């Protein structure tokens, strides 16, 4: 199964990759860091499942480059373009926020989840609330990935 991780936080990205390697077999994982590079990878690599951060810069930050506009809903934005471009990928949102955006664009995680379910039936597989010092996100992510068809390792290494 081909997995694309679109995540701008190095720390979170490392944790996700370590988790995927530890828990699943036969995964090919690619990593991108922004809306733009993430969407381009969806188009070029045709991943089966995307692990999408919700808030990211528009472009990759390289060196001191800022990466353009920060998108509070970059994950949703990628999903919208996937839908508009009629690409087949499905996505799991992995976020550490429980509210997003500002002003009229402000959303709670719950509202966003409902919006994604409504807007992307079949494409949106679920949301995982990530917290760097907690473990429950791993169970949730594992469950969603298994449901999406990923093969769990029969004897995964213990969590350190």
């Amino acid at each position, binding site marked *: 199964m081909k997995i694309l991780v679109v995540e701008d*936080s190095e720390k979170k990205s490392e944790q996700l990759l370590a988790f995927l390697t530890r828990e699943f077999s036969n995964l090919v994982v690619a990593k991108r860091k922004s809306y*733009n590079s993430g969407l381009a990878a969806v188009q070029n690599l045709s991943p089966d499942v995307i692990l999408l951060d919700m808030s990211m810069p528009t*472009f990759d930050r390289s060196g001191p480059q800022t990466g353009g506009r920060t998108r509070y809903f970059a994950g949703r934005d990628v999903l919208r373009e996937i839908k508009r471009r009629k690409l087949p990928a499905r996505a799991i949102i992995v976020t550490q926020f429980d509210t997003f955006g500002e002003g009229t664009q402000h959303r709670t995680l719950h509202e966003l989840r409902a919006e994604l379910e409504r807007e992307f039936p079949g494409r949106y597989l679920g949301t995982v609330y990530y917290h760097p010092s907690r473990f429950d996100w791993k169970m949730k992510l594992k469950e969603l990935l298994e449901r999406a068809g990923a093969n769990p390792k029969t004897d995964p290494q213990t969590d350190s």
Partner: protein
Amino acid sequence: MSKRPKPSSQPSREAKKNSLDAKRYLTQLLASTSDHEQVLHSLKQESWDVHRQVFDALAAYPHLRRRILGEPFPSDFESLSAHTLGGAGNRYVAGLKEELHWSLSVLRFHKEQVNAFLTRKRLFERALLARDLHRAQSDLGEHFSQQGASLWLIDASLQVASRTPAEPTNGLLAEHLAAKACTGMVQAFTLLLSLRAERLVSLTVFDSELRRLTELERLETEAPGTAFHVLFRLNRSSLTSFPDDMLSVNLDHDYDYALADRVQTFIKTIQVVLARNSGERIPFWLPPLVSRASMLFEDERLHAAHLLLSGAVWTREDDLMSRLAGVIERYTAGDYSEAAALARRSILADPDCFEFYELYCACLLRLRILPDLPDAAQAICERLLSVEIRDRGASDALGKLAKSAVELDATRFGGRLEAWIRARLPDSTGIDPIRWEALHATVPTPRSALALPSTSAAAKLLRELQTVGGMPITAELFRKAISGVRVSSAVAPEDRALKYSAWSAERRGDYKQAAEDYTHLINILGENIEAARFAREALYRCLVRIGELPAAVDLVITELLSGETIYFPAQIPPMVHRLQKSGGTAVWKLAAWPILVYEHTRASGVSGDNHEVYAALVLFLSAHGAERPSELRTSESVFPPRQLLYLLRFVCVPDVLDWSLEFTSPEDLDHERIAILDWLESIDPESGPVYEEERAQITRRIVLQKGLSEINRGKIYVDTAGIKKELGKQFIERLLWYMRSRPGTGAFPDMVPSVQVAPGGRVILHLTRSGIVRDDGFLLFRELHHEVRNRFLWSDHCGLDSCLSVELRHGNVSGQLRPPFERAKLITQRDATEGRYAPNQFWLDLATKAPDHILGQLDWTFASFAGRIDALIEDVKDCWIRIRSTDHHPDGLFDYEFTDEELREVRSRADTDDDSPAVFITAIFDSLWQRTRKNLEAVKAAIRTRLTTEFYAALTTLESDVQTIYPRLAPPIRQHVANCRTDLDEELRVLEGWFAVDEVSALSDYDLELLLETVLYRVRRLQGIEDFSPRTQILGNISLQGRTFRALYNVLYLVVENVIAHARERRNTADILIEVQGDTLRIHVGNDTKDEACLEELERTAPELEAKAQGGIGTSVVRQEGKSGYSKLGKLLRSDLQRAEYTVTVAVTEGKRFEVSVSIPLTGLCA
């Protein structure tokens, strides 16, 4: 929840019919099962008459009576819901029809008390809105003495508390009540109600907290159905998400609540069912049930529901209906002054009747005057008007009104206000705002007719209102409009008649006629822009409907170019969506198409969400075979000029274009926008300055980005050329000796060289036999290597440690790492003299209603956290970014200790056939650079792992501590900590980037403006002083070589930073002058010193500073932090810029003005 049970044998039908048999019926029912729940379930299936008889007979069955009636009047707060069944045993829930029916029967049994409660509730609401809090409190006391505690009472008490400036505050009261509550549900409810009443808490936060709490499994486990009940009572946005079966469960749980709460649940259930069903979808059993309820109980909400189902007008005992009719009639007749005066008086008399506020504001719009009311009512009217005329504060006003509506949920005023807001926002709940408004009408008005399912029902209602309602003119206008009859000016003033005719045409789908009428109306209303706004909006609607897109867009553009906004009603989105799916190339080719979507998006209140605009723009560009808007310039003449102008100016902006994969970087995007601006300037020269300003902003950003890129790239630099010069003759002599003594040369392998300098400077080399057999060649190599290494590390002018001090330890690391915590409001500044952190006022303000001991704990927690963060930053500066040595810096990450084995390896690479000392020294430098790169990787790894982990751990602890100390801060602290983590990740990434070897500058030639802009940007950011705005001047611009940027940046930064440090609050008195005088660059910075500065002290200090800058005082200071800025300045000028001649003058004037001038010869620096 269990399925419906079947008692073993049912009582006979005969037994139910006869009232005298009610006891027999109950006896039979109880004989069939011992489970009271089953008995109750069977009773719910029975008729109204049976219910009535059974209730009359219940006195003989105390246990059953208790189960059926619960405790409608809990004597005190502690016993509220104390009897809840909460999951014990089965509860058999009937269908919605049976449950509503049963609830009504129970309420009927307490008819007098229900009506007493409704009357008291009305009085309370009126007092609350009139800000007569004493009276409101007294009403609540009366209610409590008569009907005991209830959730409604809690809500009402918290409403009063939140409006009372004196203690007890809302939060304290809530905590007091929650502590007494005996069930988790009451606790949860109380805290949520408190949160809702809290002015400082936004609706979004409240909704989020509500959802989080009601998702708690514990709540569901402890009391099934409770979470739903809480949501049902408190969630404003999910009315349509309440399925019938859950509404039934909710009604079944009525048993758990006080009578006052049961009344509220019953009425709201009816409203929800009616809000989402109309016409044939209304259940057949509902009208008789609502009719019965409206006859039993004196509540407008029930009357309004009855009207919606039957068209029946209700009357009131007081004069409110006649007064409202009077205002409406005068308004319709065009007598706005009289209508406004009457409406104003009525607001004062009935502050809980929202219709008066609406009419008052409508009159003011016509009269173009401002409201004149007491405090609370004045604020409401100002917000209503702000929304109606769409002024700059409209969005904020709408938000505040929405909060008021939610706070006053379940009041007459709150419901109607919510309906008013729903009619002005795109609705995602599917609730028809007209029906919702009709459901919350205080009295029937002609507008209620619009909510009726048929024209005939509406006509019937209007006829009634003409006769008994006292609204003959308005009702007649509505009747004609609904019937599709044009209204003549004989019935009403011309503009009113025209408005109704236009509206009527629009309503029946004759958009062409409607457009004509609205156009005419706009002409009549003339200059009264506010009053004509609705007509222009309606005209736009009609133009879109009849496919006159260019005309519609032109109307929009006219509005927008006149500096106004336009409001799009709910019927436009379907039109846009239809065109999006099936518009076809004919539509998509129009420049009007993306403009329409842009306006639709903007007016829908989702202006930040422009994906649909982008999608429309892509279709438009594709239809013209283009990828980028600028490519259309060659076919400019194809597009209507005004539309093209609008498209390029407002739609083809970076926030829309950056959705496209066509652009690969922010710079690419900026260049496209600049191309568009160039084009705009050519077709709209009148607005040239506007485009020029935007272009200048983009250019400045690009330039600044270049500057920041330059200073944020690898900062690690060692001047090896300078070190080579420093090594001197003695080193070279020893090196030559070593080279001659290398293995294979056969010369003195066991002799130790020493050097003596004879008078006259002649160097004499002595060779001493050691007497010990050893690898003297290696020992000598090690000495040579150490000497080069030591200079590489410790040279004041050229070495690594001075680079680490100037580039990193001197403020930069702290300036990089502190801001994410500061921006998230998690840390404050530490007082330099007392060493204490300033109180974190942001969080203390959020917890302003907490008791003092809680505030004390919060203050301590935030101060400790700030201390922990600063200690970590200090560790990075003072322990990590150090050359490691066992004695001084054992934790330094720059490790230059070489084992003998490593040195032999280096030696093997250094020993080549080439006898040139330069080649040998370069080989040693290579080994040092290689080690440096390895060290830098270690630093980066430490930042990525240890530092990040430490910061994260500190944040997690803070989050947890704050939530424990004061749970009401849980939502904001979670959000701020998550924001901080993200922000911190980015700053750590930039910090990591600094730990790389400074390679050749990527910056091309630059000018002085870039230098100054970059310094000011960084000073503001690193020092956290966004308001720093010195007077700046650049005289004589020159172009400098890119390689000089970093050093000159550091020179200017040091001088400007000095201003911040010493001028403090007077920093904005600073002048910065950069001028070119012949071959010299002069930087002059002057500023007022702080008030307490001592003139004599400053005068004494000035020469010392000059001496430091000239390198006259202990040069090793350059590698220290603190009071070393001028030494660093000298190092930068001498070594980094390689200026042998430069001057730094420091002066203090009589007026205590501190002035620093740096003169730098430009030879070799200019491009």
